[in-house]
């Protein structure tokens, strides 16, 4: 039975060596690269099953490299291995098509598990962060938002003043912001609501009971 072919990408040499030692018994480490561009080149050159990549790397970070590979049609699974115990990284990694997100210090057990899962077509996230990740997806799940709540509190304030007939300048004076900022809010509100004119804006405000007649 041939061992799965793995590429390691980490700009820290001792880490790369450690990982290589960790993986060798079970996987064939085809190559070790130390930056994002090399990663892209190597992944295209070798036929790989799994790529284990750090996120923070010089020239091109791991996530960008993964996106480039996906766009180039490279089908290898990507597992990110990072120091960043941060949901933002994890989300970004998964959005880039990663099959795993593993924190470096839980590497020995988690990394091997992640590679195995990836090979089976599953996605693996280090348990230390999985909970937070789920939570963050739940919070930002769309659906409950109606149109008006697409606006921020400040935008609703501006909308009300505009609908009441204030000019951007007057809005700026009332809210003690610069005229440029007020103008900015106005433009954002119009584009967020998909409307063009102040008249439509007034109609919108009445319909949503932001102002009353």
């Amino acid at each position: 039975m041939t061992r799965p072919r793995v590429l390691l990408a980490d700009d820290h040499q001792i880490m790369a060596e450690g990982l290589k030692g960790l993986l060798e018994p079970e996987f064939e480490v085809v190559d070790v690269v130390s930056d994002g561009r090399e990663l892209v080149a190597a992944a295209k050159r070798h036929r790989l099953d799994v790529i284990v990549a750090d996120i923070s790397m010089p020239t091109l970070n791991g996530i960008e490299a993964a996106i480039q590979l996906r766009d180039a049609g490279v089908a290898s699974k990507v597992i990110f291995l990072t120091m960043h115990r941060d949901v933002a990284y994890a989300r970004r990694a998964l959005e880039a098509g990663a099959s795993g997100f593993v924190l470096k210090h839980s590497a020995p057990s988690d990394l091997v598990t992640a590679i195995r899962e990836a090979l089976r077509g599953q996605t693996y996230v280090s348990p230390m962060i999985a909970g937070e990740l789920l939570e963050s997806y739940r919070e930002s799940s769309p659906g409950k938002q109606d149109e008006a709540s697409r606006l921020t509190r400040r935008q609703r304030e501006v909308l009300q003043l505009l609908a009441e007939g204030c000019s951007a300048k007057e809005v700026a004076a009332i809210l003690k912001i610069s005229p440029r900022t007020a103008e900015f809010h106005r433009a954002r509100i119009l584009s967020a609501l998909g409307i063009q004119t102040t008249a439509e804006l007034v109609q919108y405000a009445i319909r949503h009971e932001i102002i009353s007649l």
Partner: protein
Amino acid sequence: MSPRNEATKDNTRRLPGAIRLAVRVLAVGVICHVSTEIGFANKLPPHNISALWPTGAILLSVLVATPVRHWWAYTVAAYFTSVMNDARAGFPVAAILFVVAGVFEIWIAAVGVRRFAGGLRAFDNPRNLIAFITVAVILGPFLSAFVAAFAGTTQNYWFYWRVWFLSEAVAFLTLAPAILTCIGVAYTAPRVVFVPRLVEICLIVCLLIAICARVFNWPSAGDGSVPALVYLPLPLLLWAAMRFGPLGVNISLLIVAIMSISGAVQGRGPFAGASSADHVVSLQLFLIAMSTPLMFLAALIAEGRLKAIGLSESEARFRSMADTAPVMIWMSDATKRCIYFNKPWLDFTGRAIAQELGDGWAEGIHPDDRERCMTEYVTAFDARRHFGMEYRLRRRDGEYRWILDCGNPRSAPDGTFVGYIGSCIDIAERKQAEVQLRASHEQQRDLASRLLRAQEEERRRLAREMHDDLTQRLAVMAIDVGRLELQPSLSGTVTESLRRTRDQLVTLSEDVHDLSRQLHPSILDDLGLVDALRSECDRFSQRETIAVSYQADTVPAGLPRDSALCLYLIAQEALRNVARHAETDRVEVTLTGCEADVLLTVSDEGKGFDLGAARSHHGLGLVSMEERARLIGAEVSIQSHPGKGTTVSVLSPLRGRES
């Protein structure tokens, strides 16, 4: 001539008081004796009416010009002849009445003229003249006539009343003014007399005498005499009024009066054949009608002349003040053209007044300032507004100096706009200090920004070092320990202690990672501002248990690294403020992009604060927010009211700082 010399000379010239008074009284006595004789001699038949009683007018003039305490002496002297005559006649009642009425009348008039008509200045302006005519010409004769009229028979009371009134009035209207003005002129006249004026006076007097001789003293042509001839002296009287004022008119009128009366007495001229009292009356009325308007004319002229003298004096005062003032002064007329520059201005520019007048002065303005300057001047001028402008003006040595020029509209006493008056001072030193100050401010800001950048760079380097080296090494150690842990040959206790070691390594590694993140958020470099802020919000909400609603909308890629870091740090600072001061459990963070700008807002509905007070208090870091924002060309606005929450907005241009 020294004052001392003058005093000595004065003393030698002046006789002791009593003697001087005696001499004067004697002189008045002699004059009055003569005048009384003339008066008696010039009575007109058939009632022996005097058209003009001279003694009263002479005494009045003397009293007006002398101290009240000497009046009794002059009065006695003046009436000496009359009383002597009366004594020879055995003091008839009529004579005594005349003396009493005369003294009564003259004292009233004298007091009135001194009190209300300005004394010797009674003819210098219309107001004084009216007062003179009222008290001396009308009131005195009017009242005394009631006493004097008793001298006549009862059935002729009003006739005598009229005779007395008119002859006294005419005397006070013609003779008294002439004497008073002569006395007045003697006090004030310049010592030097211009020959041409002297010639002119003589010419007027001679012509007047000649004309009066023709009109009043020509042998009567009977019914063929032309009454209109009496107007012949008028042009000469006007001439005298225009050229010599009250003095000219009063003397000329006296000449006319004397000539006309003497003509009438001798039975010549238009008032000849004075067989009835009516002719005397018509002569008197002629003199009154002739005198009054001409005296008014002269008074008006005198008043105008005095005012003109006053004006030219104030003008001279202004000039001397302006020329010695330590500032440059200019004046313009209502057409914006300059009509005056004071000496300091001319000394400064080193140019002649003729070169500066009109718009010439503008040539001295620095070419770069000229247009702005003229626009400002014209704009202010058209609005009749005060202006203050700064420009460079060429000094006589060719150096352009900064001056401050302040102009004010000026108006005539009746309120009409007549132009501007302005003053300028050299502010070159101040200007230079300003420039230096601004440069040093700029330097300071530059230094501050470089310091801030250097600090960021250093923190970034340190963070990178910690993250790339320390944490990685710790992670390798953790991995190694983990691998050991997986060895099946180890006993349970060893595995357990290995696990604890690994946990400690993980904690240590995470602590270092956090420290690194505090030094510099490398997440910004890795994931960009949107995710970095989201992560920061999550962490904040976990740490502080304050719900953060984070919305990022259409934020364009390619926000400069400096700007991203700045927005991130400001958001962090604002969130920290919320946690510390707002006392709320929710905060809203938004990041919104537009074509050219990115807007960050952090707003809460907490307790807010007073912005003015907060600015001076460093805890809130408002100043550092603003300073940071300035570095990337962003503007920070902070809106907060006690009880109404706080909103921090930062609008940052996508292109970074434009300088």
